[in-house]
């Protein structure tokens, strides 16, 4: 009880945090937002840049410390979530792609999770050893994607000669059954991310 209370009243340690412009995650959001605008994806670009502005605006605002840690999910809860995601995926996957219902089905979960991303006690973190190996491969993927994109004659149209990852993966989204699985997996990942954000403690 006293341990939970000390967690709830623990002050936010912001003095050790680097300036926002020196945080790679912030720079990635800004650069990606500008890139989306360049390639003609106005909605994507605006959302990214608005969130970047939100980070700047709230940079010095003390957010409330997150709620007490969540307990490990029991088996019934896990089964319930899996079935729920499967059902969600099956319903949404069978809707006509790129229509308003699907857009809402994707937008609403994001709107529900995003506010929780702001509520965090900022403390210094040390990444595990050799985490840089993941970063190297991630950067290579991004660079190759960028290379393919830049070789396209039209930024808004994929080409056969230089397919971007979206073009390469398009066949996965061609059938309702595959879309259903992927939507369900996407939602499950979002729930897992939400639990990580809500449940982690110093």
């Amino acid at each position, binding site marked *: 009880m006293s341990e939970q209370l000390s967690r709830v009243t623990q002050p936010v340690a912001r003095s050790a945090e680097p300036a*926002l412009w020196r945080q790679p*995650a*912030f720079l990635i*959001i800004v650069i990606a937002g500008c890139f989306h605008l360049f390639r003609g*994806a106005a909605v*994507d670009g605006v*959302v*990214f840049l608005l*969130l970047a502005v*939100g*980070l700047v605006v*709230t940079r010095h605002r003390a*957010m409330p410390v997150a709620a007490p840690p969540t307990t490990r999910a029991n088996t019934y809860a896990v089964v319930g979530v899996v079935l729920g995601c499967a059902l969600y995926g099956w319903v949404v996957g069978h809707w006509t*792609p*790129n229509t308003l219902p699907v*857009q809402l*089905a*994707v*937008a609403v*979960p*994001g709107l529900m*999770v*995003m506010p929780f*991303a*702001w509520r*965090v*006690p*900022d*403390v210094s*973190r040390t*990444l*595990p*050893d*050799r*985490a840089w190996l*993941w970063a190297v*491969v991630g950067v*290579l*993927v991004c660079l*190759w994607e960028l290379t*393919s994109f830049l070789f396209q004659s039209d930024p808004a149209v994929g080409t*056969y*000669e*230089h*397919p971007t990852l*979206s*073009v*390469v*993966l*398009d066949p996965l*989204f061609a059938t309702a059954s595959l879309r259903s699985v*992927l939507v369900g997996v*996407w939602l499950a*990942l*979002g729930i897992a*991310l939400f639990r*990580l*954000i809500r449940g*982690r403690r*110093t």
Partner: protein
Amino acid sequence: MNGHLSHVVTVSVFAALGLALVLMALLAHRRSSKLPTIGQLVRAALGRRSVQVLLVLAWWWVGWHFFAAGG
């Protein structure tokens, strides 16, 4: 470089990088591995608002891009 060859090279590089990620994920789960798992990486990175926003945004954008906006 003709169009077909360019296509094959591009897709092959994507496939190789994807395979590298899968192999790294498998290696990271070995008991003696010094490579962090994705879960360990994410947990270590969380705790900073910009990182949490980026992770949620990335997840959200993947869904939007592939399901709602036509890829």
